[in-house]
């Protein structure tokens, strides 16, 4: 699968970045392409382009605060989970999405 994700936590200092890394690692390990945009105190980093989004099979919102620029994802399949889900079970999250989409 091609996955794009956005991470955003309340303080924007730690979990946003830790979860981005966890999603990256989990997706790679399970054989998927992923790009993760972080929305934290450092601003928006690794910003998803229109092309990234157009090519993605699925969008993951891993967040505790509102995702900025959500209109970019209109019409896409979106999985919306709290930060804690990707913090605790990043591989399960991606493997469940894979099963539900029947994709590889």
């Amino acid at each position, binding site marked *: 699968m091609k996955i794009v994700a956005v991470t955003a936590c309340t303080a924007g*200092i730690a979990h946003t970045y830790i979860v981005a890394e966890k999603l*990256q690692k989990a997706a790679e390990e399970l054989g998927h392409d992923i790009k993760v945009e972080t929305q934290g105190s450092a601003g928006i980093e690794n910003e998803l382009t229109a092309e990234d989004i157009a090519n993605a099979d699925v969008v993951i919102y891993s967040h505790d605060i509102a995702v900025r620029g959500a209109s970019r994802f209109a019409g896409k399949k979106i999985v919306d989970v709290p930060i804690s889900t990707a913090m605790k079970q990043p591989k399960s999250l991606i493997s469940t999405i894979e099963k539900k989409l029947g994709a590889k």
Partner: protein
Amino acid sequence: MPLNEILNKDIIDLNVQGSTKDEVLRYMASVLLKNGYISDEDVFIKDIYEREAEGPTGMGSHISIPHGKSFSVLKNGIMIGKTVQPIRWESSMSDDGFQDTQLIFLFCVSADAEFARNHMMLLSELAGKLGNDVRVAKLSKAQTKEEILDLILCEDDQLGEAEVLEAEEIVDLDIDL
């Protein structure tokens, strides 16, 4: 060079005293005060607790990452503390909501966005490194300040191998798609 300010042996303490979360946070705040990172312990602690109230900062593997933005911060940094005894800490990783913490990364970040901006990229990069399970497993066993610094600063591919504590078992999640 902001890295020397953010990660600094003066604010790594391998003998953090206290038997409760509150005691260790106060101990660590006193080290930050002594080293000129904060201007007021009580204000800093209050701001840390404000973030603590929003959700658990235990991240498994006996590691916690309390953090908050505070106007009491004079220098941005990450204080690293190894506790002399396990500390019960709210956790996002366990079923009962708690874990035993022995290594604490206390993020000390200015609430002044302009002032913190220069350092946020570096802080976020360092935070992201804690998303690597092998690094985290090695950090939880590290015994010296040098070892801790090396593990944080090295690239992922320099980490080598480690048995990951609490490795994730892949299960089906109940998600809407």
